[in-house]
């Protein structure tokens, strides 16, 4: 117990003293996950919105597939991205394996279905409400996509934060495609796993505290946005 308290104190001092190695890992984690979430949003949100408003054969099957992809096992994604990026893989020529870019790609694969599915859900609800009015105003289905995305913006920021939560806490895929190389691809989650196995609990705990802090901050932002949405009548009925 005393040892845990001592490790915890060391962890806190690592955070407060601005330990360079620790903060470099935190910054790399943030850089990778923020990029991944932004790319996922650029791909997933229009796809989700288009699925919400378009009507075509096989749409229902596509929605089921997209929902199923939300639960993709990260290690499987890691393996698939690894195979794609490995020297003998189709994208091997790009030499991206064991780089932060490879980790971003893996997180994009994991987060994009979440972004698309949540967007589809939010936009479909809104489209139902707006449908007649937009048609009356002469707005076509295709032209309604940016209107709906903009009007669902607060709910979509919540989706963005949910995607970020998934990305930043991910370990299985990034350890496979990143390799957990010191100062290159070592992020918070992979460092926690490594340092724990080495018995360096202070560093693992410090990163754990920051990770939990980030999770709390993300949830607080979601909660604040929801509150604002309710106050301004921007929430969906």
């Amino acid at each position, binding site marked *: 117990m005393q040892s845990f308290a001592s490790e915890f104190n060391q962890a806190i001092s690592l955070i407060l003293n601005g330990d360079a190695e620790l903060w470099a890992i935190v910054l790399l984690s943030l850089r990778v996950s923020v990029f991944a979430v932004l790319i996922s949003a650029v791909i997933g949100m229009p796809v989700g919105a288009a699925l919400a408003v378009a009507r075509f054969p096989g749409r229902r099957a596509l929605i089921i597939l997209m929902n199923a992809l939300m639960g993709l096992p990260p290690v499987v994604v890691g393996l698939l991205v690894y195979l794609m990026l490995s020297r003998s893989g189709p994208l091997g020529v790009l030499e991206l394996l064991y780089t932060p870019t490879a980790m971003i790609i893996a997180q994009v694969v994991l987060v994009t279905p979440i972004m698309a599915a949540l967007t589809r859900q939010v936009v479909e609800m809104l489209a139902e*409400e*707006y449908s*007649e*009015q937009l*048609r*009356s*105003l*002469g*707005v076509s289905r295709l032209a309604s996509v940016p*209107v709906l995305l*903009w*009007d*669902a*913006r607060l709910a979509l920021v919540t989706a963005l934060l949910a995607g970020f939560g998934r990305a930043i806490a991910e370990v299985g895929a990034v350890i496979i495609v990143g390799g957990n190389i010191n100062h290159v691809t070592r992020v918070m989650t992979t460092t926690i796993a490594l340092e724990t196995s080495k018995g360096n609990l202070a560093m693992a705990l410090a990163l754990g505290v920051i990770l939990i802090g980030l999770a709390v901050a993300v949830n607080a932002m979601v909660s604040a946005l929801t509150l604002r949405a309710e*106050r*301004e*009548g*921007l929430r969906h009925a």
Partner: protein
Amino acid sequence: MRDVVTGAPGILDVSGLSIARNGKALLDVPHLCLDGPGPTLILGPNGAGKSLLLRCLHGLIQPDRGRVCQNGAVLNARHKARQAMVFQSPVLLRRSVAANLDFVLKRRSMPRAERKHRIESLLDEGGLGGKARQPARSLSGGEAQRLAILRALALDPETLFLDEPTSALDPSATQMIERMILRASERGVRIVMVTHDIGQARRLASDIVMMQAGRVVEHGKAMQVLEAPESDESRRYLAGGLVT
């Protein structure tokens, strides 16, 4: 009773219009011509097909059979661009009051400076002058419906359809909306409005379409339909009796 107003915008002509679902006729209108000089009010009990007819006239619903013509030509995209509709529950964009109006003005490709000026004048017209920056969804029921009407008028429509726009409003809010409708009619906008309120029909209508069970049972000058209805259904409805 309202006097006949000026202006005779796009004439709406319906022929052989029918919609049926599961073998039941929801709408069956062999002929109807809306060419009166002022507001046309469509009256009738729930399920009479009033809203369905309105949506057909606006092209939101395609009938199983029949056609809607405007000024003698089958309703097309050009006609629809000069029509606007206000729904029973106002559907406002999750944006500011001014942005709701700006949305339709932008669609009309109006230059920014002109849009700003037009928004100000529209908001003044609807008594929403001080609320331009307020989120539209935080408006009261009456204000929200006034904004919905202003947004429809921002399209500069030839025809304005209104589906029970005051059914959920108090008398004061209703009065403000009725004034807006009358002003629009006086400017030459053809008004076609669904209502349950016989008093409202008395205040606004130039002519009245009385519907029941998907059929038009009577269409004529408001004074004539209200004071000397020809059909039994109209008489029962106006007498406040149960119409089935």
